[in-house]
């Protein structure tokens, strides 16, 4: 019986000490890590649509509305799209203007083959998305004809499709949810009214 308690208590002691230490470390790293995460996300958004402030909308598709810092005018939307590529999910963050034309995109997380699929993170690839509309988001191998298409990465069509199709699908969803949301509908109404007024 004594041995029982002895073993149990020793292990208990070690666990407690270890946990205490970890909890302590965690208590000051956690805020930092969270801050870093938030900052990264914010940085990414800012990179996509500079000089804006963002408002998060959660729902079927979570996205951010970007407004001009000064005019508070809606500049566009950012969101994260995801689809399975060659080696796992590929996450892309994209920004579109209010006509749903792509401002720019950034592949933020992927586990594709180095040298092939990973090339999707390079500006050479992402830059071609700039200014594309929904209809132009077809990979050339799938019949799209440049410049109205996305040129596939050499030897990595699967990754290319994953990025293009994910963005495409998300824009579709975004459109749907934007038109539903009364607030934004009102906003766009007001801008429309403004234009009419002009």
């Amino acid at each position: 019986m004594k041995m029982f308690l002895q073993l149990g208590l020793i292990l208990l002691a070690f666990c407690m000490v270890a946990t205490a230490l970890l909890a302590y470390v965690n208590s000051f790293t956690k805020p930092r890590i969270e801050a870093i995460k938030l900052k990264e996300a914010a940085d990414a958004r800012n990179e996509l649509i500079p000089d804006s402030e963002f408002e998060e909308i959660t729902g079927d598709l979570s996205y951010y509305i970007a407004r001009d810092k000064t005019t508070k005018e809606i500049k566009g939307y950012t969101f994260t799209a995801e689809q399975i590529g060659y080696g796992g999910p590929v996450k892309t963050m994209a920004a579109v203007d209010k006509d749903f034309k792509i401002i720019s995109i950034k592949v933020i997380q992927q586990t594709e083959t180095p040298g092939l699929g990973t090339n999707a993170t390079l500006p050479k690839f992402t830059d071609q998305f700039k200014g594309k509309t929904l209809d132009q988001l077809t990979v050339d191998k799938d019949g799209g004809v440049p410049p109205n298409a996305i040129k596939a990465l050499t030897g990595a069509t699967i990754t290319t499709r994953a990025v293009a199709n994910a963005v495409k699908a998300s824009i579709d969803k975004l459109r749907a949810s934007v038109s539903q949301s009364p607030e934004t509908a009102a906003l766009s109404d007001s801008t429309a009214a403004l234009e009419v007024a002009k």
Partner: protein
Amino acid sequence: MSFIKELTKGIIKENPIFVIVLGMCPTLATSTSVENALGMGMAATFVLVCSNIFISLIKNITPDKIRIPVYVVVIASFVTIVDLSMAAFIPDLHKSLGLFIPLIVVNCIILGRAEAFANKNNVLNSIADGIGMGLGFTLALSVVATIREILGNGTWLNIKVLPETYDPMLITLLAPGAFITLGFLMALMNMLKEKK
């Protein structure tokens, strides 16, 4: 001077990767670039040294029956500390090492050294052993990574070393390339040993 001896043995004579063949998972997974290799090596060395110190301190108060769970708790704590601190202070490297930071816990080298060395030696020698093994691990990892990064990407520590016209041999960055590269390095070690 046994401190020096324990320190240096891990680098060549008892290199954890080439000679003892432990800790293969991180070796192969994180040696795609020299940068990753150095990061992983450093993280593992830190854990190794800390756990060696600690375990050699507590070796006398742990009953045999729960030795392994206790050691494992000690190691896991240091690993988590590394994990959390890396996430907080060097997020970029943390991201690219991914899953393999928590797996340092089971990196066979660490428990292996705990059992084989720290369990039986004093603190000072355990520190030396930890540093030596850690350095050996880092060194071996970097050698593998050097070959893989150069052949598979044409770069070394992200510096372009091969001409633009070089069409990288992707396989070296993939699983089979990792195995084969390490296999040949070990064969080379064997050959050198035979020559001697």
